[in-house]
């Protein structure tokens, strides 16, 4: 496959992940969609580092550090969520992570605590 085809493939993956993030309200589905986005980024990095700028260390370092820190952030958030929910709530806790919130109180009036 040539450079362009691989790039289009990564863009397709990216749009799939965006679609997933927009329509899901489940935590696990949300993180899977994010993983697809990260996979698309990795494909791009590898594609460009092999064909456009072979041997570019900056690109490799960016990929490795970016992935490491991102997974650290992801792990921290997931650990926080799961360590703050008891076993009964765990199933319910993964719901309600939709990116849009269209409740009236988010736009107008007061939100009841």
């Amino acid at each position, binding site marked *: 496959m040539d450079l362009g085809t691989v*790039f289009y493939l*990564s863009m397709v993956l*990216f749009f799939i992940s965006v679609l997933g*993030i927009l329509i899901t309200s489940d*935590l696990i589905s*949300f*993180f899977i969609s*994010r993983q697809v*986005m*990260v996979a*698309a*980024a*990795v494909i*791009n*990095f590898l594609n*460009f*580092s092999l064909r*456009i*700028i072979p041997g*570019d260390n*900056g*690109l490799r*370092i*960016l*990929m490795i*550090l*970016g*992935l490491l*820190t*991102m997974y*650290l*952030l*992801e792990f*921290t*958030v997931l650990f*926080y*969520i799961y360590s*703050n929910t008891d076993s009964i709530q765990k199933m319910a*806790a993964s719901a*309600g*992570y939709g*990116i*849009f*919130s*269209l*409740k009236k109180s*988010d*736009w*107008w*009036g*007061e*939100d009841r*605590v």
Partner: protein
Amino acid sequence: MEYLFEIIRGPYAGITVIAAAVLVSLTAGFSGNINVKLSMAALNAASYIGCFYLYVRNFILYGPYSGFLTDLGIAGIILSGTVVFCGLNILFFLSLNRISGKNFVRAVILLSFSVVSVLLLVMADNAVLVVTSVIISVLSIFNLLASLETGNMHSREYLGKFGVRSALPAALLLFGFSVLAGSGGIKNISVYASTGDRGSPPVILSTCIFACALYLYFFLYPFQGIFLRFIRRTGFTSSAVLWFLYIPAGMVLVIKFSPFFDLFAGKVNLYGFLIIAILGSLNLMGAGLGAIKAASTRRILSMFLLFQLGTVLLMRSSVFMDTGPALPPAVYDVALLVVTLAAFLPLSLLASIMGRKNGDDSIFGAQGLIRRHPYPGICFCFLLIWWLAADVYIFMSKGLLQGKALSAPYVYWIILSAVFITAVLLMAANVIRIITLFFRKPLKADEVKRDGFPRVFYAYLTLFMLLAAFSLVLVAIGELGMGEDHIYIWGKTFYIFGNGN
């Protein structure tokens, strides 16, 4: 030895001072002694001030610093000063609200980590450091919030949701840089401002992805729900961290990516103009309308901040139709950030004090404030009016009514002006509502004169009042223009962005 000299003369010297303070603070991480806690807070505050001093000193002695990963010019110094100022204020809020808590010193350490990571973001120029420092900043702010919200049952769920949402822009940024690599490798961001490949498809595509990432980062409309709900359930210190560390870090990122966003400057692009103008209007109107019926001070302040971000967005939309200012839009971002901090820091402290006194954060707790406490009441009225006036001055006078903006097609000029004036009128209604509340009779007449503010609060408020009044005087006599592209220091002119000097 040469390596050490490189650290001392470079931008890392300031960060080293904060790191040393954190190292010392670690030894007192579990101490419950109030004197130890106070001394640790003082040590960290001194390290922030020392950090900024070293930034300025190194800049004066050695000039702008430019390395493989970093680039620190006059804009970087101003932004570093702003971040350090934010850090000091949050430390002050933390000491005021949480000094008796058992994890106070640990919260201070986490705050210092957050400040260091945002300072790294300010100086970052290479994609490697930009991506890493953004993610580390979000991570450390999340850790700080988690530490502050320990034991708060109401905010747990929403903090988790906040973490999930704030992790998304990081993934988008990484993807954006991966696309950008297609334009011939990863270069420093400052290089994109001057090279000829600014218009190449990978650069334009990655610019769009960066813009989406920033939009999500700020929780702008229609993604505001989690931000508002989380703010409503947190303590006042956590709200301050979000308002005055998370949002300024995002503004730093906006300014950092300015070379990409300026790609469209001078190109007549109707669709780009429409998209950004509609989103900016949505934020301005949404924030103006949303604050009218809100009673929680934290919710109202959050709406005000969203209004500020909407102003930034609308300012950017003007660039698309060449109606924009002659100066780089990043100059206005810096000005709006400074106005935001100067107006909202004392307001959030008032909300915090009223909240502690009344047990909830309802704005009605401040009813009759001017009758009970004339000086703070008048100061707050002044700051609210000053904030709105400064916004109008920066947007209209320095943006739309200057230079080439006047030669742009009238229809675009009228659309932008009409949207902004309507939104400002809406926000003015909010400000008048709050000021009227201050002038009304107190809900409990017997409490008049009985509840005093801490003395330190008067000093804090006076500082911001003087700052606002001083800026007004300087603007009136023509010595200072908010949103100028240069500053005068000791008879020398320094251009904030670009190589004008």
